[in-house]
């Protein structure tokens, strides 16, 4: 878990970029896909409704022309005096019968020519005489027809042309048909002398519209009572569907171009056109699923989009990975520089931008490095000259006092002691005025300290005793000049103001690969705060003070070295100086790297 978080954090830029890109790609594709599908669907529906409206109009025209022929024929039959006479007259002779049959057939032939090809024409007279132009289509007898319901309805509505559906199996030889019926009525007396039937077989009627239909695009003819009288779906023929009629009426009444309905258990687009003269509705149903499925391959569109998204994501992944990787690496390297080394340049790799950034960074780093070097060098130089100056300032009072002591010793005839003091002073001066850079061995330092102590004891007496304890294996190690002397001086002149006598211990030993020098006095001790006031005080021997020592050591050797002071009132003070182990060889390398140093010599024991 942590690992994943870490990875995410490390690739923060990449994750952000990638996520944003992926989300954008996906949302763009999804939106485009959906809007494409929706748009094509809408467009399709629009075009479809336009073309289907046209188709519907054409079908309507066919029906209207059929209806017109029927009206025309029925008017002609109604007006045909010969037919009327033949249908009404009672005859006896074969001759008359033959003549009338011939005539009526001739008349009907003429009239029938106006009728659409596939329609039949039957005329039934009140004298039960029947004339059938296409007996094969409907071999019906006069007896059957005159009592049939369609005749009864025609009789009930003598002024109307009725389009009546006769289902299969009825009397029609298993062929459903639509029969236009019209009673032939004598105008003056309203006497019905015969009936005109114009039957058209359903399958011929279907011919009006069947060419316009296809799978999922069906046409149904519904009559005023909701019966489907013709359809390209033959199962529906003869069935009652008030639902369909209701929808058709609704569409027609509201002048809708089309409406979406659920009928026959399918979502369909319904277009409708009314044929008021025939009391019929032409209903065009478009199965949305089937048709749209054929037209818009949603699956294909989705597949293409998915494919594009996948490719884009892979490409984005690779490209952004390449870009962010180089940037992330730069960032990681930069953040590590502060931890390790400023001088180490970062890799100039990766994309153009990353390389430029890295290059600029490296350039800046170099400049900075140079600048810092210059700064450091001048600082050191300054410090060195400062220390040098301090070191060379041998306190004139020290010389004056020492020389005064020697004069008194000589005066008192302590020739030997005077001589001794002189001997101590000479190397001490020699050492102090020498090169600041130089280091001296522990042995030499001790000698110097001894000289210094001797001079002080000559002058102030030996109430303060100085012992030095040096581990023999340390004698050959080197240490900078004037490192221990300031603390001895400090102890001499400040530690014993209340106590008038005591000891100062000098311990030098090797500990944990370090050279440790301790200056311990048994004097008054002090508050650590007091140290600061001491520090401001003028030094008695040279310009080098306690404060400088710590600073100088750290400047020379690094942070882990330096001076530690611990003190306790009435008990004394302990100064611990930690130095690296320097031998003859390393002394020069060290010296070249750093700088400065003064020296100090003092005498030891009294």
């Amino acid at each position, binding site marked *: 878990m942590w690992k994943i978080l870490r990875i995410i954090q490390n690739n923060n830029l990449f994750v952000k970029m990638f996520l944003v890109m992926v989300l954008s790609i996906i949302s763009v594709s999804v939106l485009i896909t959906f809007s494409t599908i929706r748009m094509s669907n809408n467009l399709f529906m629009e075009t479809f409704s336009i073309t289907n409206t046209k188709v519907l109009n054409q079908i309507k025209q066919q029906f209207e022309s059929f209806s017109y022929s029927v009206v025309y024929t029925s008017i002609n039959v109604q007006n045909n005096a010969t037919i009327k006479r033949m249908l009404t007259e009672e005859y*006896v*002779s*074969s*001759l008359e*019968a*033959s*003549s*009338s*049959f*011939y*005539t*009526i*057939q*001739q008349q009907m032939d003429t009239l029938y020519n106006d009728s659409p090809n596939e329609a039949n024409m039957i005329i039934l007279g009140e004298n039960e*005489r*029947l*004339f*059938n132009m*296409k*007996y*094969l289509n409907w*071999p019906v*007898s006069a007896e059957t027809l005159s009592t049939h319901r369609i005749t009864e309805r025609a009789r009930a509505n003598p002024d109307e042309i009725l389009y009546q559906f006769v289902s299969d199996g009825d009397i029609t030889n298993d062929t459903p048909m639509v029969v236009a019926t019209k009673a032939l009525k004598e105008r003056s007396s309203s006497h019905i002398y015969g009936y005109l039937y114009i039957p058209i077989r359903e399958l011929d009627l279907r011919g009006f519209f069947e060419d316009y239909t296809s799978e999922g695009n069906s046409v149904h003819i519904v009559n005023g009572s909701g019966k489907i009288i013709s359809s390209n779906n033959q199962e529906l023929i003869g069935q009652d569907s008030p639902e369909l009629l209701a929808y058709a009426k609704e569409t027609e009444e509201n002048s809708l171009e089309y409406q979406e309905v659920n009928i026959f258990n399918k979502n369909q687009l319904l277009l409708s056109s009314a044929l008021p003269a025939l009391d019929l509705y032409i209903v065009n149903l478009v199965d949305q699923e089937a048709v749209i499925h054929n037209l818009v391959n949603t699956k*294909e569109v989705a*597949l*293409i989009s998915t*494919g*594009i998204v996948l*490719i884009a994501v892979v*490409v984005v992944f*690779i*490209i952004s990975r390449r870009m962010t990787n180089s940037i992330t690496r730069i960032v990681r390297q930069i953040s590590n520089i502060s931890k390790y080394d400023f001088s180490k340049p970062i890799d100039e790799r990766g994309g*153009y931008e990353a390389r430029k950034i890295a290059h600029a960074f490296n350039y800046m780093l170099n400049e900075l490095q140079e600048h810092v070097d210059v700064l450091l060098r001048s600082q050191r130089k300054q410090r060195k000259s400062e220390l040098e100056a301090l070191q060379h300032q041998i306190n004139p009072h020290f010389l004056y006092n020492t020389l005064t002591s020697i004069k008194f010793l000589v005066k008192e005839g302590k020739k030997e002691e005077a001589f001794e003091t002189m001997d101590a002073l000479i190397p001490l001066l020699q050492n102090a005025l020498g090169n600041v850079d130089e280091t001296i061995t522990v042995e030499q330092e001790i000698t110097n300290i001894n000289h210094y102590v001797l001079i002080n004891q000559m002058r102030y007496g030996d109430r303060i005793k100085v012992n030095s304890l040096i581990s023999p294996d340390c004698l050959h190690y080197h240490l900078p000049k004037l490192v221990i002397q300031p603390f001895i001086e400090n102890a001499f002149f400040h530690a014993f103001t209340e106590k008038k006598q005591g000891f100062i211990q000098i311990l030098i030993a090797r500990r944990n690969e370090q050279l440790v020098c301790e200056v311990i006095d048994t004097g008054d001790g002090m508050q650590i705060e007091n140290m600061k006031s001491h520090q401001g005080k003028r030094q008695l021997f040279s310009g080098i003070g306690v404060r400088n020592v710590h600073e100088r050591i750290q400047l020379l050797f690094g942070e882990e070295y330096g001076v530690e002071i611990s003190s306790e009132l009435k008990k004394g003070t302990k100064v611990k100086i930690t130095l690296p182990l320097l031998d003859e060889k390393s002394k020069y390398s060290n010296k070249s790297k750093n700088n400065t140093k003064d020296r100090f010599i003092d005498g030891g024991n009294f």
Partner: protein
Amino acid sequence: MKDFHYKKSWLIALALAVFLVLAACSSDEESGASGDGGEEPDKITAWAWDPNFNIAALDIAKESYDDDIDLEIIENAQDDIVSKLNTGLSSGSMKGMPNIVLIEDQRAQSFLQSYPDAFYPIDDYINPDDFASYKLAPTSFDDQQYGLPFDTGVTGLFFRTDYLEEAGYSMEDLTDITWEKYIEIGQDVKEKTGKDMISLDPNDLGIIRIMIQSAGVWYVDEEGTNVNITDNEPLRKAFENYKAMMEADFIKANSDWSQYLAAFNGGDVATVPSGNWIGASIEAEEEQSGNWGVAPIPRLDMDGAVNASNLGGSSFYVLDIPGKEQAAEFLGDTFGADEEFYQELVNEVGALGTYTPASDGEAYQKENEFFGDQSLISDFSTWVEDIPSVNYGMHTYAIEDILAAEMQNYLKGKSLDDALADAQGQAEAQLK
């Protein structure tokens, strides 16, 4: 530079990948090209009329055919077949045309001569010598046999034995009579039984054709091209007979085929002078079994007239459209070769084919129970031999329409000379 190449190759790879994906998505549309308009249709269609006879014969042929055939038999009125064929063939579009079509012999020439390329010669599938010779002339053209001769159309006088017996007539009284005698008997029957003698459709002069062919003439001369009406003595006689029948007032008028059938099936008429094929429709009314007999057709009262004629014999034709070989093979193997099939045809339908090798079969000698155990087929076969051969020419029905109109005028009182002269004039003008 190197980097640039690297980047570029990436772009190319990307473009390629996108292209491949898109191509894969859209490629499936191409497959599944449809073979255009199969050469061989999966079913053979046949058009015919008269379910009791022609259609029934085709059904039997289909059953007895050894090979598997998907034959769809479509019933159409003869007039419809004629008009559809005319429409289809004259437009040159064979779409919706059947493979096999039945055409009446009297019309055949008009089709064969008008549309010789539309029909498929079947000489390779049958031996024309196997068929009655009088069938070959109307069914062939340019020395090629197009039609497969089917039924004879030999005529007989079907009559109700019970009605005639009631009027005092027997089979002998009806055998080898003239039309004058027939009218005489008819009047008698009408008087005694109240039944009409015959049912006629005034638009159809079939009975006239029966009469004139029995005298060996037709509406056109022997060449088949010149209208032969005014000087046609048998036709004149036939007209007179027709008018005499009308005046005898024993005719039940009908206006279509179903009414014609209803007339004798319903027991309204005593006789049906017609082709032998009407037997099947008569037998359809089983209740009348045993009440029917068949006498030879009456003849015109003149020299050379015989008691035999022909009406409505027809033959099968194969149209020159895909499936023609299959159709011709089917016809050749059944109607053109299968003797047993003809026996069955006789037994089941009473159809008398013109395939001579079959006439020796047992079924031809069989007595028919419905017709009072008369050896019907045998009788018909005998009469076939006497049928005078005539050249029908191309315009039988066009002329007949004119004659039917003039017949009405004649019935209404126009002189026969004028009526025939007018008919001759009209026919010549129309057929020029």
